[in-house]
């Protein structure tokens, strides 16, 4: 069972890893359209009223739609590559079509997740249970698996899990929309931020980031804003710590700190791992507090990041980017002071073992 769950996690992460570039490409193109439209004082560029207008407004409206094209491929790609991971090439078609059906039925991310898993295992089951004589064996991959894999998947999606998953998805969206205001938004930001900081790329962090990404496909951006702020806080924090508190770190860690800072700027959270591993008992809480506070500041002051990018090249596409950047730096300073004041062992030999 444990093995099965680990494999399942691997399948889902495969789906996410293929989906990420689509999300980023789509969201950035739409972000460019939005920022460009703002120059004309237009804040709802997706509205069809802007297909005609002054200057570049129609162009930005079209651009927004083109970005949406990439974004709409998120669910099919996600479901398709989950299926691909489970049962390889023959399952890709069933997963893709199942994911597109999730789009159409409005079952959202959860429906696409179900579509990917169901189609993958259906094809896996068919491929391993149907035994054909050698001479006819090619019928399986060219006909039976694509046709029946897809047929069973879409029937299950359409008639069995479509309705309950749509209801579930709507309830979730409503619940999170309700949390998007006032103090609950703050709580959401604290929780997501803290989770991201907890294990830096581990399962808790991934749960938070995946949730944030799933909510993007529903046009809910608070979780994403919180997550993207939090992702780079520890890396930047340790980078700052090794610059400000140089004496407390071994030469190797000062070098690692510079690398960490640059990794932070481009949006990679893993630079903080060696620092955290030296003194996890003190540094994990420091990371969690820094990430949670930074995310809460950005969200509560109204920053909205619609793009799953945490690096510096995404900052200018954030609504109210100055408070967004403020959140990042306050969080990073918390981590930096925590590392300098509380951290133990950054100058020991044991530390060099880890690097």
């Amino acid at each position, binding site marked *: 069972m444990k093995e099965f769950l680990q494999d399942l996690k691997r399948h889902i992460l495969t789906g996410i890893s293929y989906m990420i570039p689509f999300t980023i490409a789509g969201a950035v193109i739409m972000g460019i359209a939005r920022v460009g439209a703002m120059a004309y004082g237009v804040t709802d560029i997706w509205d069809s009223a802007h297909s005609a207008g002054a200057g570049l407004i129609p162009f930005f409206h079209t651009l927004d739609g083109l970005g949406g094209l990439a974004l709409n491929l998120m669910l099919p790609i996600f479901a398709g590559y989950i299926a691909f991971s489970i049962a390889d090439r023959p399952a890709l078609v069933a997963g893709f079509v199942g994911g597109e059906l999730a789009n159409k039925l409005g079952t959202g991310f959860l429906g696409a997740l179900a579509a990917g898993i169901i189609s993958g295992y259906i094809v896996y089951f068919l491929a391993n249970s149907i035994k054909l004589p050698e001479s006819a064996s090619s019928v399986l991959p060219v006909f039976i698996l694509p046709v029946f894999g897809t047929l069973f998947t879409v029937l299950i999606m359409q008639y069995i899990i479509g309705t309950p998953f749509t209801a579930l998805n709507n309830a979730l969206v409503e619940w999170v929309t309700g949390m998007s205001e006032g103090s609950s938004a703050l709580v959401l930001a604290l929780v997501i931020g803290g989770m991201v900081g907890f294990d830096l*790329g581990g399962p808790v962090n991934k749960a938070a980031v995946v949730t944030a990404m799933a909510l993007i496909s529903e046009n809910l951006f608070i979780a994403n804003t919180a997550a993207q702020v939090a992702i780079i806080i520890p890396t930047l924090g340790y980078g700052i710590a090794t610059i400000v508190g140089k004496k407390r770190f071994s030469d190797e860690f000062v070098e690692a700190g510079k690398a960490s800072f640059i990794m932070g700027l481009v949006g990679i959270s893993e630079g903080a791992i060696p620092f955290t591993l030296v003194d996890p008992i003190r540094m994990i809480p420091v990371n969690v507090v820094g990430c949670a506070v930074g995310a809460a500041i950005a969200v509560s002051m109204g920053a909205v990041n619609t793009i799953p990018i945490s690096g510096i090249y995404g900052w200018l596409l954030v609504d109210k980017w100055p408070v967004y950047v403020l959140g990042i730096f306050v969080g990073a300073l918390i981590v930096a002071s925590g590392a300098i004041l509380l951290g133990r062992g950054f100058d020991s030999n044991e530390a060099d073992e880890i690097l």
Partner: protein
Amino acid sequence: MKILGVTSCPTGVAHTNMAAKALVKAGEKLGHTVKVEKQGALGIQNRLTKEEIAEADVIIFAVEQKVREENRFKGKVIYKVSVSAPIKNGVKVIEDALKLI
């Protein structure tokens, strides 16, 4: 001992490389030759050749994703761990992998 590794993570930019580096380093420490194929965001880097796979005693999968072209490794002794395992303790991962032989 000849040890091979394959690493991958969902984003494929950081953990993949860190795990690969950790495996090579731990191998050096224990006196084994380790070559690691990285299946990251840029595709397959440092690809393992057919000969290397044939000669390997054990292959470590430190992966969070489907291993690309997995059928290359059919019939080999494979030790599967998460991508963060070698980053935390590469020596232990290699020692555990060698126990499988």
